[in-house]
Every structure is written in structure tokens, then in C-alpha cells.
């Protein structure tokens, strides 16, 4: 059996317990909590975990979620191969009128 853990950030394996301990240590805003625990810094870049982390933070601080802000979502929003970024720019033809 797996050790019972409640995972908040599946990418970086950050559990609810770890988040709570970090908040108790004073990392009580989303951005510093992210930097300390690493949540939202994995392959999904926060797509799955920020909403959950914010709700937990609001509950633990007794603050409204709306006051807690967000993290900064940086490009790219999906993994992009380096080769796709290294190509030359080419103008594409405007799309034709008839459906494919």
C-alpha cells in the first residue's frame, strides 16, 4: 500500500502536510509558498495545483481567497521543442474560402 498522503502538487510531490508546515513557518502567500515548497514549478506549471493551494491557504489563514492573488504564469503554457523555437519565420498563406 502507498503511504497515505494527500498530494496537492502531483508534479513535485508536495503534500498538504508539507504546505501546511511551510505556512506555519511563515511562508504564507502563494508566491513565497511556491518558491519554498516548489509547488506549481513542475511540468504542469500550476495548472492542477494553484486553485487547491489557494483554497487551503485561505482556510489556514482565515482570509478570503480573493485576497490571495495568484502566481505569475510564464510562457510556454505547454512544452515546446527547442526546434520549434529555432526555425525561421515564414509568412503563411491566408486560409482559403472553401471548407476542407
Amino acid at each position, binding site marked *: 500500500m502507498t503511504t497515505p498522503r494527500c498530494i496537492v502538487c*502531483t508534479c513535485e510531490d508536495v503534500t498538504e502536510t508539507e504546505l501546511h508546515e511551510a505556512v506555519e513557518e511563515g511562508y504564507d502567500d502563494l508566491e513565497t509558498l511556491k518558491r519554498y515548497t516548489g509547488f506549481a514549478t513542475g511540468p504542469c506549471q500550476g495548472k492542477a495545483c494553484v486553485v487547491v493551494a489557494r483554497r487551503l491557504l485561505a482556510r489556514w489563514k482565515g482570509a478570503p481567497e480573493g485576497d490571495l492573488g495568484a502566481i505569475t504564469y510564464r510562457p510556454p503554457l505547454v512544452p515546446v521543442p527547442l526546434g520549434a523555437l529555432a*526555425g*525561421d519565420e515564414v509568412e503563411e498563406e491566408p486560409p482559403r474560402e472553401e471548407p476542407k
Partner: protein
Amino acid sequence: MASDDARIPEHDRGRPVTLFLDGRPCRAFERETVGAALHASGVRVLMRSIKYHRPRGLFCVQGECASCLVRVDGKPNVRACMVRAEEGMRVESQNAFPSARRDLLGVVDKVYRKGLDVHDRFLRPRLLVPAYHFVIRRMAGFGRIPDSPRARTRPIRLLRPDVVVAGAGAAGLAAAAEAASAGRRVLVLEAGAEPGGFLLHLRRPVAGEDADGPTLARRLAESVRKAGGDLRLATPAVARYPDGVLTALAPQGLLEVHAPALVLANGSQDVPPLFLNNDLPGVLSARGALTLLHRDGVRPGRVAIVVGAGPDADLVRGELEAAGVRVEAVVPEIAAAEGGSGVEAVRLASGARLACDVVVAAAGQSPRPELVQQAGCALRWDEAVGAPVPVVDAEGRTSVPGVWACGEVAGAKDLRAALEEGRRAGRSAAEAGGAAR
């Protein structure tokens, strides 16, 4: 344990192909994703997690959560839920030895029962620190360098439509159809393999329309194309830059879009559930289960527990049952999922245990915040949705000139609202989109 029971017979999945998982052959079909093929064959553990080496598998089934990363034909970190099976494809486990199923380093999860806080570990004795680093560096990271690391450059295609729509769900298609009918050159970018978004999961006649979701999606997509709109599938947005440029990743390479009008209609995604062992293979989000059923034609399991309440939970239960999955119970919450390499049961707060092999979490949706934030839109807190949404006027205009938002990404509460908002935004963007040139 191969089992064809999981595949829904009537589903159009193309010709059979054979792929190899860690060297062992596995039956698949050409229109199945690798994740679906493996799931149908009883392989649910696709990878191990980075720190605790916990078993992981499909969760969102739409390329967003990164729980299904595998190595495909020598390329690391491929989302098994998004790549189609091909004849002879070599799929390998990542972050596990010898395989994701039986990973020796799984002991980490067993040993560090109280958690592993990296901040105060592996610092003493100082003499051992280089040895610690030697081991940790080899265990860290996601995947290994590709077998053939030489990058193949692909041209970046510049497009200059009048209106670009991000998302081909109900709102996006409605917006695109309006703008295209108004004579504008419209480009629609959709991350999925088919247009429709959540419409694809609404298999009964949808309220106010005479057709089911997939039919409505087809009609809307047709009307976009008939009006000359350019609908690009499997093309997720990559970024929206401060100068207004939007980039997206098409199968053939990067698109760089310069358009005076941007309509954000990229919808919402499921909120992950919170309970012990919420990361076990076999725990799927509501959309994940629906995608596995409808897009891939694979039953998530034999016996399901649905965690959640309200219309989403009802929808999921209905679709599961229609596909032959026994829904043991629909409960508002659970204390824990239990299992070794996959879900075997759930434990309720009362202590009662219910056996199952799949848990579907219908914990609500949240609008996707990334593009809205990158576009610089002013936000407001939407209490009903439980998330920030862009401030929009009656025409769907955000606080940023040239940027509209409609549908679930803007907090739309139902399909009717999404379609109406989409039409208004499309009309408004069409008026502005031409003038700005």
C-alpha cells in the same frame, strides 16, 4: 493482464497496432492514445513521482496534469494521454527502475512516512554531502535526454487573421462563427483533437437545442468552416505576449499570430480532489473519465465511486453507467483512496470501505487563468466559480483593448450563457477587428 473488456465495442478506434511498453508488446489501435491503450490493457501505472516514487497514471486525460509522462521512441516527458499509438512505438517508463510497475526506489515512499522536507535533509555529516549530491542528482529531474538530441528546426509560421479565437468549445465556436459570418478572417486554435470542448461529453439533447453536444459541436464547427474560418486542432496556445502576439504549437511547428482582436474562450478545467492517496492510478478527474470514455472509447474501470455532488456528478454517473461501468456510490467526499499500485477501495469518513477500481472526482471546475493573466486583463473574484475571472462588459470586452473573453473562462454558468457570450464577443470582435487594420 490484457483485457479487451475495457474497450467500448462501438467506438471507432482504427486499425490494430502493436506498441511496446518497456520491451513487452501491447495491443493498441491507431486512433487510441498510448495512455488509453495501456489503460485498456490493464496497465495503469505509467510513471513514478519525482520525490516519493509513488505510482502515477492517467488523471486529467487531456494533457494538463503531467501524471502520465512516458518516454516515447526515445523522447522524454511525453504525455501518454495525448499521443496516438503507432505501429512499433517504443514506450518506456520514466523515473523508475526497472519499470514504473515495479520500481526499486518505491521504498522512498515507504521509508519517509512522515514526509521528506528537502530543506533540512542531507546536510550532515558534511563529509557525506558530495555523496548525497551524487545520488540526488541522478534521482532528480524528469526524464533523460532524448536518444537523438539533435533538434529538428521547423519554420515558425506567421499568421495575420483579423480575429483569433483561443478555444473551440461552445463559446469559442459561437464567437468564431459570428466573426467569420461578418466577413472577418478568423483563426481558431484548439488544443484538443476535435472541436467542441465540453460539448463532446453532453450525449443527451442539450437544453434549448434539438441536438446532443457532439452534434451541436459539429454544426458549429461546420458553420465556422463554411464561413471561411480557419480551425486548427491539436494546437494549444503557448503564450500571449505584452505586444499582442499570440503563439501556439501546431503539429507542424510554432504559429505566431498577429491579430488585432483576440477572443479568449479556453474554458475551465477540473479542480483536483483532496483526500489521502488522491494521486493513486485509477483516480480520475470528471473530465478525465469522460475523455477516456468518449474520446478514447475505454471504460475507466469496472466498479466506480464518484466523489462529488450536483450536476457534474450526475452527468459522470450517467455516462459511466451508459458505458457499462457499475457506479457503486456517489458520495460528497471520501477520507482516502486505498491501494498499492492502483485504486482498490475508498474509505469514507465514517470508516466504511467500499471496493472499487476507479474513483472519479467531480470536485468542480476552475477557469483557466494563464492566457487571461498574460493578456493583462483586469480580474474580479467570482464567488460562485471560486476563482478569479476577467472583468468583461456586455459585449465580452475585457479591460484590455483588442481582447475579449467569453464562456467558462469568463465565468459562464451554463451552456446557454457560453453560447450567448460567444456570439456577442464574436460580433464585437468582428466590428473592431476590421477597423483596427
